[in-house]
């Protein structure tokens, strides 16, 4: 469904991604793992249109995404749940979800989607009138997931949904993502919790200093000697 071919990108004169090729098929969950500064967030920024690419191609279901302005990506079906969540802190939970359904096609289904997100995350229903900035970290993550789901994206990009959460909440967030998967969404997830991420996804890519170092199915990577030694301390 999503295909990246030899994508390079960077910030000003600094190149952060070098000829990345990556594939996500419909219904799949794919993880991007790697150390700090490897370019994982940059990669998601590229896929969600926030950062223009220097060379290469990006297509979604065969349609090129090159040159589209950032606000059009969601209409193409790509929802981005960014690093550090980036909720609208002085809006209520429900208004944040409303913003997730901003585009006309989603606005039409607002009421039903809202019910659906609340059914998925009952905690959000309880907190619907609270300002998003005052939610707990885990609740904020739910709200960010909910906001991204409101547009019913073809492809959901998650940037470290478990970052900054206590271990028990990390488990909960992974459960949330599992539930989202079970709903049939295609997910591309960036994670530092490599072991847990590999339990969740079908395939994964290991990024190191802006290059794909390894890729394969979750099963293969779990048994990969290099990955086990360098990143899982096994």
């Amino acid at each position, binding site marked *: 469904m999503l295909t990246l071919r030899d994508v390079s990108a960077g910030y000003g004169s600094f190149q952060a991604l070098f000829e990345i090729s990556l594939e996500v098929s419909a219904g799949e969950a794919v993880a991007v793992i790697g150390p700090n500064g490897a370019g994982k967030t940059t990669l998601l920024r590229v896929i969600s249109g926030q950062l223009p690419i220097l060379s290469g191609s990006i297509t979604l279901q065969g349609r090129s995404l090159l040159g589209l302005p950032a606000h059009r990506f969601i209409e193409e079906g790509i929802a981005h749940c960014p690093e550090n969540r*980036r909720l*609208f802190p002085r809006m209520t939970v429900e208004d944040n979800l409303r913003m997730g359904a*901003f585009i006309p096609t989603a606005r039409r289904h607002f009421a039903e989607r809202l019910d659906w997100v609340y059914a998925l995350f009952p905690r959000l229903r309880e907190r619907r009138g609270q300002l998003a900035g005052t939610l707990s970290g885990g609740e904020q993550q739910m709200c960010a997931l909910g906001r991204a789901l409101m547009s019913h994206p073809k492809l959901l990009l998650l940037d470290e949904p478990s970052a900054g959460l206590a271990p028990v909440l990390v488990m909960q967030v992974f459960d949330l993502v599992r539930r989202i998967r079970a709903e049939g969404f295609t997910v591309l997830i960036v994670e530092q919790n490599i072991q847990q991420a590999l339990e969740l996804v079908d395939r994964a890519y290991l990024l190191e200093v802006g290059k794909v170092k390894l890729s394969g199915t979750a099963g293969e990577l779990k048994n990969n000697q290099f990955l086990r030694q360098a990143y899982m301390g096994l």
Partner: protein
Amino acid sequence: MKRWLPYGCIALLAVVPFAPVPLYYLHLAILILIMGLICTGWSLMGKFGLVSLGHGGFMGIAVYPMALLWNHYGLTPWLGAPIGVGLAVLLGVLIGYPAFRFRVVGHYFALITLALGEVVRLSIIAARELTGGSLGMTPLRVQPITDVSWYAVQFTDKRYFYVIALVAWLGGLWAWRLVNRSMARSALEAISEDEVAAASVGIHVTSQKLRITLLSAAMTGLGAIMLGQYNQYLNPNSLSGISISLEIVFASIVGGMYTMLGPTIGALITIVFRESLRAYFGATLTGMAETIYGLLLILFIIFMPRGLWGFVVARFAHPTGDTSRLEVAATR
């Protein structure tokens, strides 16, 4: 009862000039309505975090062409006014498009607009053969001289201007209401909180900001046109530049830019305040008004950031004093 209140107030305002109101008060009312319109326009940007310190620029660029077209070509203000408003909108595009496109936000945006107001003022002064420079200019009296000329929009009777100003001011409130009830409002609120997140949910950040800027510029230009036409006198220092720009900011913040009537209340306060200072101190203490403005502005920003009217509305809506909900209520 509550639903009829606005209509009752409008009706009351409409009959004011036909009651035996002293001319001086009618004069003040006209100024308040016009400044109310301008401040309402400013607040449409201000409340979404687009703080402009240069709305005087939109005033000058709208009102001078109208007056010049009248003086040199006899073009009726009915055509001059839309041209002037159009020029204000054009200036809005010239300043807004590059600023928004290249993500000039916050203080930097305020600084750019600050320059805008001054550039317009200096240009008017530089073109002194045409505009009379800092001495100002007077629109020519319509010939033959009459008391009521709709063609020249010149009236000896202030009540004509009162009605025109009232209609324009109501138009401004109507625009405010339209914005408040539209999706643009949610979009702009989202933008003011986080531009990247706003774009990621599908909001066209540049275009949303540009559109509200243009609306604001148009309302400000229209207000300036009415001021010039009412006073029958144009001065670059009162119709462009930093001093009037800051007065607009001051009034809007003091009255409360998050509420529909706040900016007008702010205009009322500043105008009444300025007039009473003049009455008490005469011309002896020049600069007094500005000093007190400055002090009050600091106090308001610290203690009543939503302005006087915002504060009243919030108290009225939630007398219990639950501040988090106060905040939310006051933005409605």
